[in-house]
């Protein structure tokens, strides 16, 4: 049981390039989330999904798109990367139930030059 995994672990992009971050979970969780973490600002929600085929905007969605074609995968896309998107990105998942505990992946460190 790997939990939540993220690929890649590190990436450097040039301004204007595109990329996709992959999140996978093997816990059969309904909810999945993408956050970004910047120094001194804590975790901020980018997009989330409440089930396969659904997505919704979080706190800071501009410049990002997401897709949840399969229950176990949640993809985060950057169509035209900007230096302001330099950050550490975390994916999380949560089960449908009585707890709101989210389980996090190891993160992807993205640098946009």
């Amino acid at each position, binding site marked *: 049981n790997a939990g*939540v995994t993220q690929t890649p672990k590190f990436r450097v992009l040039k301004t204007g390039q595109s990329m996709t971050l992959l999140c996978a979970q093997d816990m059969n969780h309904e*909810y999945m989330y993408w956050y970004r973490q910047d120094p*001194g*600002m*804590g*975790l901020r*929600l980018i997009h*989330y999904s*409440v089930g396969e085929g659904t997505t919704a905007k*979080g706190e800071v969605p501009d410049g990002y798109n997401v897709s949840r074609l399969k229950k176990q995968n949640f993809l985060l896309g950057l169509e035209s990367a900007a230096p302001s998107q330099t950050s550490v990105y*975390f994916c*999380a998942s949560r089960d449908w139930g009585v*707890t*709101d*505990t*989210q*389980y*996090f*992946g*190891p*993160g992807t460190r993205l640098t946009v030059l």
Partner: protein
Amino acid sequence: GESVGLHLPTLSVQEGDNSIINCAYSNSASDYFIWYKQESGKGPQFIIDIRSNMDKRQGQRVTVLLNKTVKHLSLQIAATQPGDSAVYFCAESRGNTGFQKLVFGTGTRLLVSP
């Protein structure tokens, strides 16, 4: 405005001491709180949670206290070890039924000296 915050950005303790990390919240409607630990280069790791109908909850070497009167949350770590060195976040669950989002504080760094 509504916020989840921490009183101290860095807490330094000696190995074997008890550590107390504090968190203030401002939304009295929040009903669920979580503490996470984040080690350098890793994702946040769940430590312990508490619902608003409880005042105290204990885990292995950790205790969370909730004071709803002053909207204050604390994490107590007993016999702190060097492996406890990390950033600790509190998170507040708020939102409508069906989907609740977590609002995270900025974190407190715990440094444990041998």
